[in-house]
């Protein structure tokens, strides 16, 4: 098989009826993923299984490691070797990965971590849905960092948005978490894969100056440094220690200020370009639902049902969960008399919404602690209470 034929196989253009797990795997290949290091865990295992079959077909590599820690470490290594790389897991595995997600944040390493959420804490509900890792994707690793986390609501989005996840990871140089859940991961829906040339791919920017002039952690206006990879001749220097622009460890408050402020600010200051939400019938709403992932489907259903009854309710769906759309929610709090937040946890995003609505409106969470998704009727009940 020629190189061109292998490239064709990377994008399975056409109509498919597949699960979210298969869609995310195919999306990663379309984004250019060439290395997957993983460890099986329900309900994400189908991603690893699919990658094990597909990657060798397109001159990529799949390795099943001894645990999730090795898996995340391996994809960081592969990224520095120049491959777009991914791993996939669920809550217990994500917990094991967080230290190395921190390494990826500190060393500004592009890669994608898929978390197909199940109910927790601990082993929890291996085969059943949860949305309890939202805060962990924000705060999981120690230290300050600003993550990008994307949450799909459909099988189609599992494909489309994991490409965005790769693009963000390459553009802003950081590990991006793709936050799915068991329901999306395991349900089958129509997936339309476009032609390869229709898919927008972003690749990390590389230095072009001679090696002696290259400062690996000096950033320009976008605050994202150019990335040389191993073998480019730039003698890459990567460390999880606080470092200066040369990449050399520097254990001082001054170096820390500069280094850590920049890796946070590169996301904070670009967040308008990153944040993505869907607004549904919000224009005239006096009640707003805010939701993400699977829960947003039922939320949309409840909006439709309520509208038929003449209740003015709309939905703000978080497509990027992090960075958080504080400013939009602040505005929304001026507009509506109540914000209802269905989520499959005990109030994680609800607290963020309370924070960003500044007490200007009532915020009411509808919590399920995992194992089942909300029905539109359950959410409708809460809407009707507030009308």
């Amino acid at each position, binding site marked *: 098989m020629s190189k061109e034929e292998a490239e064709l196989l990377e994008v399975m253009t056409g109509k498919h009826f597949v699960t979210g797990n298969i869609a995310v795997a195919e999306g990663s290949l379309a984004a250019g993923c060439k290395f997957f290091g993983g460890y099986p865990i329900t309900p994400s295992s189908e991603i690893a299984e699919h990658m094990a079959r597909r990657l060798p077909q397109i001159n990529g590599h799949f390795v099943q490691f001894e645990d999730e820690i090795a898996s995340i470490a391996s994809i960081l*290594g592969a990224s*520095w*070797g120049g491959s777009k790389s991914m791993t996939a897991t669920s809550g217990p595995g994500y917990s094991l990965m967080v230290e190395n997600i921190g390494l990826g944040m500190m060393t500004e390493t592009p890669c994608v971590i898929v978390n197909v959420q199940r109910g927790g804490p601990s082993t929890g509900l291996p085969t059943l849905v949860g949305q309890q890792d939202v805060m962990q994707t924000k705060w999981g690793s120690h230290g300050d960092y600003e993550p990008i986390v994307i949450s799909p609501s459909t099988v189609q989005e599992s494909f489309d948005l994991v490409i965005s996840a790769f693009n963000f990871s390459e553009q802003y140089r950081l590990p991006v978490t793709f936050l799915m859940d068991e329901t999306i991961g395991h349900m089958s829906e129509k997936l339309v894969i476009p032609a390869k040339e229709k898919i927008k791919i972003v690749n990390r920017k590389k230095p072009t100056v001679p090696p002696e002039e290259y400062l690996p952690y000096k950033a320009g206006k976008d605050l994202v440094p150019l990335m040389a990879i191993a073998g480019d*001749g730039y003698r890459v220097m990567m460390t*999880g220690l606080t470092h200066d622009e040369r990449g050399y460890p520097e254990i001082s408050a001054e170096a820390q200020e500069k280094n850590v402020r920049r890796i946070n600010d590169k996301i904070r200051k670009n967040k308008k370009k990153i944040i993505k939400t869907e607004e549904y019938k919000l224009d005239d709403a006096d009640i707003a639902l805010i939701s993400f992932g699977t829960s947003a489907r039922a939320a949309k259903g409840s909006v439709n049902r309520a509208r038929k009854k003449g209740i003015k309710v709309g939905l703000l769906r978080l497509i990027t969960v992090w960075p958080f759309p504080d400013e939009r929610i602040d505005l929304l709090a001026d507009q509506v008399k109540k914000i209802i937040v269905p989520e499959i946890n005990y109030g994680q995003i609800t607290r963020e919404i309370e924070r960003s609505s500044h007490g200007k409106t009532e915020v009411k969470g509808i919590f399920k602690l995992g194992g089942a998704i909300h029905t539109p009727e359950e959410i409708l009940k809460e809407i009707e209470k507030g009308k």
Partner: protein
Amino acid sequence: MVEEKIELIESHEHPLDGYLRKGRIPHIFCPGCSLGSITTVIVDAILAAGLDPKKVAVVSGIGCTGRISGYLNFDSFHTTHGRAIPFAIGLGITDPERKVIVISGDGDLFAIGGNHFIHAARRNADITVICVNNFNYGMTGGQVGPTSYIGQFQTTAPYGAVEEPFNLPDLATSCGAVYVARWTALDVRRMKDSLVEALSKKGFSFVEVLGSCPTTYGRRNQLAEGKMILEFYKDHTELQHGADTREVGIEKDGPLIVGKFVDIEGRPTLTDHLLDLQKRGRASVSKE
């Protein structure tokens, strides 16, 4: 008696210029620590092995030995505690021509990172692992570790270490390493030759170097100076190439068996397997 003429050379160049990172020296290692000289030996070996410097990557975990990667002017990666090996495997897979060398300490590689070590040996990953064994956690202040021998005193073993230590060459051998050797920090010539062999080998090669750590190990164990540790090595070392690795465990005051223990040919490596999988994957497509 012929008097040997010694000529002093004055030069602004150092033999390792270009292989150590500018501005990173002086290093942080303690007086009497062997890591400086071991670094020299590693660079000498990389050069003697004829490796293309562009295709050499060094990966470390955390700890004193883990700092070596940062002084070397190759592609160098200082990762998290215990995770150098899987990082190195991912890095290596992206280019089969790349030589990836993991340099780390006994605590990093065999306590927190032990699981990765045994699996990397099992899958015959194409990496060379150099472990500088200083018998304790040096950087964190001298705690007992997985290679501390019974009766060794450390800050968290104030009454003496009581647990059986790992026999590192035997662990590597039993897990499938294709090259296994042990040297002391004193054996610089043999260590270099051995490292050249290890680096030239495909698959998982492992070299243990018994280091000298006067500050946090020696002081508590009647070996308070680097020189004393090296003298102890000189007096207690036995060279036994091909020794049965089951017999090379380290005990207090016991002999230190060094040598090349394992050198196997022909075992397929992880890279071999992965390239074969690509062939099978492509074949499955043409069948479809």
